[in-house]
């Protein structure tokens, strides 16, 4: 069975790239343009991984992660947070204990897929 991944990213081009990269690998991907949209997707269906941006309108990544972790079915799912190099340290401190790993933007496809694959184990 293919793994279900939710991608939350407000920047359309980035999101499309991520989604198509994952889809090509055979993952089944659901996309959301902000935290609000993303949280709707967590409605009890099986989801294996969340990849989310930090800065998003309506509901940001931190809030989204908190909401997802609070749901019993998703307490332990892996979460990858997309960040830009500059801000990483600050966010890292803020998100400690909640996320699985960071993905720095921009990323190499191979590195990205390696991290996704590992997170899905």
């Amino acid at each position, binding site marked *: 069975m293919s793994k279900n991944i939710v991608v939350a990213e407000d920047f359309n081009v980035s999101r499309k790239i991520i989604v198509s990269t994952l889809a090509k690998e055979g993952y089944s991907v659901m996309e959301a343009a902000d935290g609000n949209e993303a949280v709707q997707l967590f409605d009890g269906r099986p989801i294996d991984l969340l990849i989310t941006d930090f800065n998003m309108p309506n509901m940001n990544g931190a809030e989204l992660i908190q909401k997802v972790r609070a749901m019993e079915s998703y307490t332990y799912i892996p979460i990858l947070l997309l960040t830009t190099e500059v801000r990483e340290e600050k966010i890292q401190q803020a998100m400690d*204990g909640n996320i*699985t790993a960071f993905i720095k933007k921009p990323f190499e496809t191979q590195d990205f897929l390696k991290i996704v694959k590992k997170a899905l184990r």
Partner: protein
Amino acid sequence: MNADFHQEYIEEAKQLLKDLEQALLQLEKDPEDADMINNIYRYLHTLKGSAGMFGFKDVERLSHELESVYSDVRDGIRQQDDFILDLTLHAVDVLADLIDGKDSGKQAEKIIKDIEKLKEDDTAASANHATAGGAANNNKAYAIILRPEKNIYKRGLNFQAMLDELQELGASEFMVHDETVPFEKQLADKEVVSWFEILLASKAGLEAVKDVFLFMKPSEYTVLEITDAGLFSSEPYRKHIQLDAHQIEDRLKMVEALMPGFLNAPEAQHTEEPETVSTAVQQGEAAEEDESLDKISRRSRKGGHVSVSTGKLDQLINVVSELVIFRSELYHLMGGGQNPEVVEAMEKLERLTLRLRDSAFNIRLVPLNILNVKLERLIRSVSKALGKEVEFITEGLDTELDRSMINALEAPLMHIIRNAIDHGIENPEERERRNKPRKGLLKFYSYNSGDHVFIQLQDDGNGIDFDKIRAKGIEKGLLTRNQAYSEKELINVMMAPGFSTADQVTTVSGRGVGMDVVKKDIAAIRGDIEVSTEKGLGSIFTLRLPLTLTILDTLVVSVADNKYLIPINEVEYCYKESHARLFNKKSRQISYDGLLMPFVSLREYFAIEDFPEQETVIIINKNDTKVAVVVDEIIGKLQTVYKPLNELLTGVDCFSGTSILGDGSMALILNALKLKDS
């Protein structure tokens, strides 16, 4: 492909699996049995062939792999061993799940990998053999120290998966430190409190090993390559753990076992070790021993989990059950024991038996959350079909129950939920009119209490419509028109066979079966169901289930020369009464708790003459329905193992099962409520 054939295939495949399992167990007893090996091969072959025809891809692949293993065994190329046997038995379970349409592809994949690895190992071993005496293989040895943060799972990391991944790299030795909570429990609770020391022999390079811990923080893991025996007393290692001479020697032995000949002369290193640990030695040897015994437990190479076939588990449970019976027998032989020391020893034995029993049963327990996804799916599809909005809240899904019990619960729970959404929760418009939130609430919670697990399903819907039930009951001839009925009685009618209040047979809840089936299903696993409801506010269905299916505390009673058992949780009150006083009254009723109630005399029931002068009355209370049963005498209390009745006797519903008494004789377990009905 015709659907009938499909069904036929499923039946046939299941039978094949049963035969296969049987043959495997036979083979375990006699590993040399060539006929059995042949049979196993044949079963797998048949399974594979027909699976392909019916599109069971995973079944086909898995049985193909297994078949190839057993063809090697048959041809004497491979020796059948415990590992292969366990793997195959496990595969049988997975195959059964696959045929049942369960999504076990992942497990199948894992087994196939194991088999592939088995074959690889073989070729590697034979290759090594060929170049015997050549340079030691190019394995490297690593020492790994893991100190995961307690909340590592909350970060979405799967610690178990990481250990599995590590294991795939090569043979390893796994040590758990500070195991204040059993390691398996830590994994199950997803809260890691121990820290770990792992010795790994692998062809992989240092970076590849570190890669396993990609998501761990640098502070959480250390990977050191072992190049010589000095590592364990070197600074980087001592930063994490200070080992004394014995402990270092232990580790060197482990490395030697993982990679024979890798560390050439471990003895040579010994000279320097005592210095590094002199302080620890001075603190006394007792403390040292304590530490190595209590804090460090060595694990097998397979890592934290040992998977056991359910067959083996059942075997353990059987032995434990027999032990329980034997304890009763021993007690019986001692005739109550006058010697206080013997009594004390008996009590100790009892405590130990109970503990053994509890731990054995614990192994079979699985958390309820394996049902969660199914229930959520059901709720979504049902509420959609009916145009209702439902919010599903769960609590206590980590409550554990016997695996077989959870399987048995699935259908009744689904039925109750279907009913709650169909009959209980109103349409969104209706709810708004009633000042309720548009979204109906369905709450599932479960908890442990004593020997029981409770599961409650609560909805905030309309509650049960008693007028409707009364009308329907009268229509179906289950109730009479001019009588007043209590809510309890109406609920009982609702659960009676042939009762269904759906105005029309809907696709959702009206399928010709009703709550009676739920009640029967629950009763079959010795559980109760209770309903409370408030008109306009909602209903609560409470299921009360025994933790285990097979062990029962009973009261032993005698009637003439026979003994019968009554589950002790059903016994409310017992007293003695003279035969004359009981039977001479015309009304044939006794007065209990301010009420007159009829009694059933077992002697009469079984048509045995010669009543004793003194009779014993037992008031049985099951689900608040009371029955008075008259027996000769109470013999005592007995913890016993429940065995279902032989199929030939299932028509006899005044007994629910049988059991073996301490003296080895059989006794029937009374189902008192049925005595009253007849």
